């Protein structure tokens, strides 16, 4: 990153059902169409009405990777929001609220309280007026032309007709004008980026990456925070010719995906931890039958039902331990939204080549966050390699589905082709897929088949890029993270650099196969190694140690449901530099 010259965060808080999404959306669109980068995080609950929802919209003229550490505008839709967050506002910030029903608290120095007389100014009795009025005011505070907002409102309410547009525009106008007359605006002008950006979530990136990879079959059972993938797929099914099915449960989902994959479809599904628990048996069966298929686990805070709307990196060992026995499968944890997208075609090529399941590990932060993206970074026509796939009938005799080849990879024929009739089986089988138990359970045949399958993975690591160290070689501390913490560690490293603390960063994306040797080599040069994880028990650290034997010097961990923001890591690094501690757990301030 390098925080840009314009770096601004708006937060909107209220309860579920107060319509926080709409003002958020309207503002987001304005910024990205202007070519600015966006990173949003929505702190919400597993309820449809009530509770406390807090949406962060961070906008910047350079690329950003987190929703940041500071708030510039706080839009309070209810008293609760005012009470919880006012104390966090720093000098130079604004607090917008409906003066009719919200009492401001004691604001800190330099915090501008901006009461809106909503009832007085409103042309309508619509209970959502306060939202629109606040948006109008925020537009002024940011120094935006009202016209820009008007365009955005028009687009947003297009489908609801002119009357709704007019109503919203006039309410927003009232807020804007009131703000002009009463509040002091931002002293910077909002810059414009080189070209308009698009918006997506990590889930949409995963879905689109799948579509680009050629997914023809998607099945799901709804589960937060993975449901976004289903919604995107369902919406685009007909356009893209993808069969999308909602199934009775996750067991059905996983097995249906395997059935479709066996007939040649690139097939996938997404769920969260509890649903993935139900899929594990099927994952093992795909490995044994040597059918490629992709399973996504979007982690949320556990254990069990846990905190359905909160983030965590707590499913790593579940994914590693999915299903009984030893078997081959890829496990990958994308690091950014673009990486979510790019991972999919890469993973499908690998699972096709090595004929085994692939598992993607994402989390709520990455999957449900909404981010700007430059459309030209989205390659909808990636390289597709289906490996040794037989797709044409033949009259050759002697086809053996599980032929014991040098690489362990056996040419795979799709059902329906003449000349390749065969059975696949979850029981151990011989090269010709005859069950070992059918005659006599031959230990030598058994050993041969285990080794055949395992051989596939002897070389798979070569198809995967080893992780690379980012930052100065002679850093005081090396931070290691995996998956979604990439962004926050990256930003923390830059902040620390600005503060004169040299830290570097090793981000791990591929879990299986694991580049243990490369990692050991890199870390052997580090002065001090600290692992950053969004879990209580340090699942990644323990896994890394299982594969490398490496011990480290300290940990930064968080398991309260809220994601890391950069200063948590910054504080952690400083704490580790100041004294020898084992584990730093940052205090979650924003919402008490």
């Amino acid at each position, binding site marked *: 990153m390098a925080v840009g010259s314009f770096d601004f965060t708006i937060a909107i808080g209220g309860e579920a059902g107060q319509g926080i999404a709409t003002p958020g959306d309207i503002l987001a669109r304005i910024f990205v169409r202007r070519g600015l980068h966006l990173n949003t995080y929505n702190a919400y609950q597993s309820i449809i009405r009530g509770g406390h929802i807090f949406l962060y919209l961070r906008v910047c003229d350079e690329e950003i990777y987190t929703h940041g550490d500071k708030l510039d505008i706080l839009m309070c839709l209810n008293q609760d929001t005012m009470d919880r967050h006012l104390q966090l506002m720093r000098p130079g910030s604004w607090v917008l609220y409906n003066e009719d029903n919200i009492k401001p608290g004691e604001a800190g120095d330099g915090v501008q309280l901006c009461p809106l007389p909503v009832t007085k100014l409103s042309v309508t009795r619509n209970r959502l007026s306060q939202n629109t009025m606040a948006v109008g005011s925020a537009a002024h505070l940011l120094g935006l032309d009202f016209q820009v907002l008007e365009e955005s409102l028009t687009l947003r309410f297009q489908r609801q007709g002119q009357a709704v547009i007019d109503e919203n525009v006039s309410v927003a106008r009232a807020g804007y004008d009131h703000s002009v007359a009463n509040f002091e605006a931002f002293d910077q002008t909002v810059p414009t980026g080189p070209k308009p950006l*698009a918006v997506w979530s990590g889930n949409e990136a995963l879905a689109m990456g799948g*579509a680009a*990879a*050629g997914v*023809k*079959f998607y099945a799901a059972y709804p589960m937060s925070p993975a449901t976004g993938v289903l919604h995107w797929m369902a919406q*685009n*099914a*007909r*356009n*893209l*010719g*993808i*069969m999308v099915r909602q199934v*009775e*449960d996750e*067991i*059905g989902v*996983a*097995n*249906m995906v*395997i*059935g*479709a*994959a*066996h*007939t*040649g*479809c690139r*097939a996938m599904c997404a769920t969260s931890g509890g649903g993935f628990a139900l899929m594990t048996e*099927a994952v093992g*069966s795909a490995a044994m*039958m040597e059918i490629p298929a992709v399973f996504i686990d979007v982690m949320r805070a556990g254990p069990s039902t846990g905190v359905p709307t909160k983030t965590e990196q707590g499913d790593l060992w579940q994914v590693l331990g999915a299903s009984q026995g030893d078997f081959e499968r890829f496990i990958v944890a994308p690091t950014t939204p673009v990486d979510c997208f790019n991972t999919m075609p890469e993973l499908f090529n690998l699972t096709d080549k090595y004929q085994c399941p692939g598992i993607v590990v994402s989390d709520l932060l990455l999957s449900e966050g909404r981010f700007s993206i430059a*459309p030209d970074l989205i390659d*909808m*026509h990636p390289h*597709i*390699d*289906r490996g040794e*796939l037989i*797709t*044409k*009938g033949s009259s050759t005799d002697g086809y053996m589905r599980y032929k014991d080849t040098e690489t362990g990879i056996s040419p795979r024929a*799709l*059902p*329906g*082709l*003449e000349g*390749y*009739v*065969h*059975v*696949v*089986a*979850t*029981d151990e089988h011989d090269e*010709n897929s*005859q*069950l070992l138990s*059918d005659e006599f359970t031959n230990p030598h045949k058994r050993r041969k088949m285990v080794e055949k399958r395992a051989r596939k993975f002897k070389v798979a690591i070569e198809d995967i890029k080893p992780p690379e160290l980012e930052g100065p070689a002679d850093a005081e501390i090396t931070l290691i993270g995996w998956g979604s913490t990439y962004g926050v560690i990256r930003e923390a490293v830059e902040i620390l650099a600005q503060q004169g603390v040299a830290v570097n960063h090793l981000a791990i994306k591929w879990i299986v196969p694991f580049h243990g040797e490369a990692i050991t080599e890199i870390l052997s040069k580090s002065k001090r190694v600290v692992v950053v994880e969004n879990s209580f028990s340090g699942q990644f650290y323990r896994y890394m140690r299982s594969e490398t034997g490496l011990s480290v010097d300290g940990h930064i961990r968080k398991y309260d449901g809220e994601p890391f923001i950069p200063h948590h890591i910054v504080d952690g690094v400083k704490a580790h530099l100041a004294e020898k501690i084992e584990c730093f757990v940052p205090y979650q301030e924003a919402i008490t």
Partner: protein
Amino acid sequence: MATTMPATDDKPVIPLTARDFKGLVDPDWCAGCGDFGVLNALQRSCAELGLRPHEILTVSGIGCSSNLPGYFNSYGMHTLHGRSLAVATGAKLGNHRLHVIVTGGDGDGYGIGGNHFTHTARRNVDLTYVVMNNQIYGLTTGQISPTSTMGMKTKSTPFGSVEAPLNPITSAIMNGATFVARGFSGDVRHLTELMKQAIQHSGFSLIDIFSPCVTFNHDNSNAFFKERIKKLEDEGHDTNDWKTACEKAMLFGDTIYTGLFFQKQAPTLGGSEPVLEPDEPLGLQTLGLDKEQTKRIIERMM
């Protein structure tokens, strides 16, 4: 390697016989097991319908009966215990040109697989489900199954089962199955006819078959059924009438009916999905999006 379409085979069709559907290995079922009759009937019916092995996909779970795909010459999937219908649904939607025949046991299908049974019926997935119902768990050496009768003594119920059995026929009808029949492994000719009808039926067809386990179920033997079975066809049963169908299916005393209980026409799951309209099966389509599709996606995001 790019995905290409399979050559549609234009060679003159030589009529096949049941023998052509014999698999690579001989069944390892106990001598006298009902499943032999079921396998036999399935081989005959596929031959009589003029199907060819590569056009068929058999899908099974785990159990003695679920070993069938290994003994049958066609594409096959021997999947997880209880999951055959889910896998088969995926396979059928992935390649809707395949004749998908699901084979398994009462434990596999009505016990652990019960939820898929309910929902596959409801969705009217176009496949044929052949259940070898021996009212016992055979492969695990004899425990009660969901169709075991009350009082039955097994290794898991040494003092007799206290659970009322499930009736697969009435359950299937109420769950929305569009072809619901019952067969008996001891009457291969009759079973063959039922299977032919089931395979030709468009939608979810169930044939629940009494297929006695000679080793672990001594209550419901071949002889037990032989002396009780009556065929619905012989009585002019109206297969549109779900009420009589259920009523007759409930009998399990001196008279036990076999035959087609119920049939109706309804849209199949695949048939209702416009995505399957371009006749090329999904699994055999060339991968990669076109410009127009891509454009629409990106525009949505702006």
